[in-house]
Each structure stands twice: as C-alpha cells, then as structure tokens.
C-alpha cells in the first residue's frame, strides 16, 4: 500500500493521541494488507499458507467488497492479477473511510483524511470554507491543474504516472493503459470514489464515460496529450483560477 498519510482536524479539542490512534489504525491495515510485507495476511494467502476461509473477518470482508466491485464494474475491477491477489485498490478507500468514521464517532465534524492522494473530506476547513482540493498535474508534480471545492465526500485519483504500472486491464493483459495518465473521481465517500476510480482507470478512455453514467459520481480524466475530459456535473465543484 505504501503512502503518506495526512490528516487535518479543524475542530478544537482534537489532540495528539487522537491522531496517533488514526495512524495506528493505518499501520494495522498495512500490516494486514500490504503485498510488500511477507508476513502480512494477504501475503500468506498469496503464498498459499492461509486459506481465505480461515482468514480474519476483515480479510474476508475485503474479498467480498472486491467481488461486489468486480460485478459493479463489469469485471474491470479485479484484485486477481497474474495469479496474485492485490486488494490495494479497494483497501485504501475502505481504510480511509474507517479512519474518518473513527473521527466522526469521536464527535469531529471538520477534517480530512488523505492517504496517498485519496481523500475523505468532512465539514469545512480552517477558514470556514469547503475543502480546496487540487488535482496534481501528472506531468509536473509541483503543479496543480484543477482546483475543486468539496465537502462530505471522497476524492480519489487513479494513475500510473508515478509509481509505475499497478493498475491492470483485467480484460486485456496486453493493454498497457498508457492512454490515460490520471483519473480523478468525486464520490459520496472515499470508499466509493476509490473503487470506481480504480475500475474506471482500467477501462482506458471509456473510463470517464463510465463515471458519467454512474449516478452520484463526477470525474476528471487527463490523457497523455495533456487533454482533460470531464463529466457533465463536474464543473459545479470547480474553483476557477481567479486573480484574487
């Protein structure tokens, strides 16, 4: 999974121990689901040391959610690839959602949780405004090419431009998925946004159409020619570059 975790809690009375608790939760998720760790539960399943039916409840839940997403995306989301299972495309959004839920249960209303560029936003920022989320330029990591103003939703970006290939087209192994560099999805929460951003990315150029028809989701897709295509409802979130 490997990614930086960032969170900001605006509400007063949030303290250090709360944040530590959130980081501990992500640490626990990493220990269990990271395919980079030999001792993780998912690695043991991949090595054949552990059967799914004997796995923890959380692991079995992830497999169920992955299967549901596979059906919801007509097969374009698939945690199985080349004989190995990598559930990171669904674990990340799920974990961020759970972290947000921990914060909500503690009574916090204004915060965001960001894991590797996938974000759950709630309430308002420290200026009392909706959270301003920038979409990173796939061609220049120091630049932002779009700014959206959002609250109480999830923003997920799928892309292959940084880490190298980690999303595959389950329908065509030869498809290198080089047409589209980045697909950002705004969804009702980060779990939904993440799973559909991953699925839609595997569809290549048609991914943005999939997001268009999906009720309650908007998307912004950037291709290799620096052209962006966006859904019909996306514009209402956009903060235009203004002089002030």
């Amino acid at each position, binding site marked *: *999974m*490997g*990614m930086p*975790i*960032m969170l*900001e*809690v*605006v*509400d*007063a009375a949030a303290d250090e121990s709360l944040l530590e608790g959130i*980081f501990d939760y*992500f*640490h626990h998720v*990493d220990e269990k689901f990271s395919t980079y760790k030999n001792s993780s539960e998912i690695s043991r399943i991949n090595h054949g040391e552990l059967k799914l039916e004997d796995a923890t409840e959380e692991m079995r839940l992830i497999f169920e959610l992955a299967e549901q997403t596979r059906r*919801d*995306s*007509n097969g374009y989301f698939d945690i199985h690839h080349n004989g190995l299972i990598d559930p990171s495309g669904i674990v990340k959004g799920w974990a961020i959602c759970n972290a947000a839920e921990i914060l909500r249960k503690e009574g916090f209303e204004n915060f965001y949780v*960001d894991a*590797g*560029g996938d*974000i759950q936003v709630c309430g308002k920022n420290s200026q*009392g405004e909706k*959270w*301003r*989320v*920038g*979409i*990173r*330029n796939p061609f220049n*990591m120091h*630049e*932002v*090419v*779009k*700014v959206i103003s959002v609250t109480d939703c999830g923003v*997920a*970006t799928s*892309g292959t*431009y*940084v*880490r*190298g290939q980690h999303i595959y087209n389950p329908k065509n192994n030869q498809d290198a998925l080089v047409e589209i560099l*980045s697909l*950002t999805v705004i969804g009702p929460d980060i779990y939904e946004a993440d799973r559909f951003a991953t699925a839609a990315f595997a569809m*290549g150029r*048609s991914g*943005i*159409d*999939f997001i*268009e*028809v*999906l009720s309650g989701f908007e998307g912004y897709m950037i291709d290799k020619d*620096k*052209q*962006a*295509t*966006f*859904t*019909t409802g996306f514009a209402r979130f956009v903060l235009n570059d*203004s002089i002030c």
Partner: protein
Amino acid sequence: MSRNRSNFTSNFNQAIKKFFLSAFVVFAFIAYAIHERLTNSNAGLSSAQAVPTSNAGLDASGSSAGVQVSSLPTSTTSVPTAAPQPTALSSTSISSNTSAFKDGIYTGPTIDVNYGLVQVQATVQNGKITGVQFLQYPTDRRTSQQINAIAVPYLQQEAIQAQSANVDIISGATLTSEGFQMSLQSALASAH
C-alpha cells in the same frame, strides 16, 4: 333536343376522361407496388446467406415495424457509449414477404458493450421476423439502471492548465511504493 344531346355527349366525354385518369392512377400505383415487392424480394435473397449466421442487431426498443438485421462489431470498441445498443453498420429491410429466411430462431453472439452483455434472438415464421428478444441485457447491475435510461452525451474537454490558487489538499496518483510513510504532517488547527 339537340342541346340536351350535346350536353349529354360532353358530360359523357368528361366522365370517360375521369375514368381513364383514375384508372391510370390506380394502375400506376399497382405497378409501383409490384415493382417494390420485386425489388425487396431481390434484396432479401441477396442477404439470405448473411442473416442466419451473422450477428443480429436490432433496435433496442424492440419495435416490430421496420426491424433491421445488420452486422455488428465483434469486439468492444473504445467509442464512448453507455447505451448497450448494438451498432447497426448496414441495414436491410425485410418487412416484405420473402421466402429467403428459413423459419426458425436465430441467436446472435453475446456482445460485450463495456457495461454489460447483450445478446439478441430473432424468430422467423413464414419468412417474417415475428419476434425479437434480448437474451442478455445488463439490467441486473446498479450502473445499468442509469445506462438504460440515458445515453452519454459528448463530454467536454480542455487542455490542462496550471492553477495558481492555494489548496488545502492535493489529490494525485500514489507517490511512494513501499511501506507506510506516516507523514506526521497532521495539523491541529482551531476552527476560529
């Protein structure tokens, strides 16, 4: 008396003219109809080889009037379309009575239209298509409920442009690959 007789003659001439004119119109119509029938019959015969074995593409509304039999692309194209309607490349009207099609049930192959599978079946009786059925149609997924109702409009595009606005958070593809780097850039900020 002669006036009556001449009136009668002219009326009669007019009636004759009307009769022949009408007869000509009717004859022309019949000739046209027969010609059309012969033309359609020929076209039906020429596509007879294609229809029983080819993909059957039908209007998704399933209307029985003007049913078209056409060939389909055999693989999913990248053309954005959400409505799972097979694309008609050519059409042949087979509404006329023709013995070109053997009675039977013709089943098309299953086509993956990206959001589901579509398969159609046509029933031919007495040389006419009497029934059209979708054997497979993506109605059992949440997404297809919306797909069935709307078609994807042409989506807007733009060249990406660097923005100068300040942002709270940045969304982008994952930056690092191994392990968790717990960036302790958490911030505690007062709401006021």
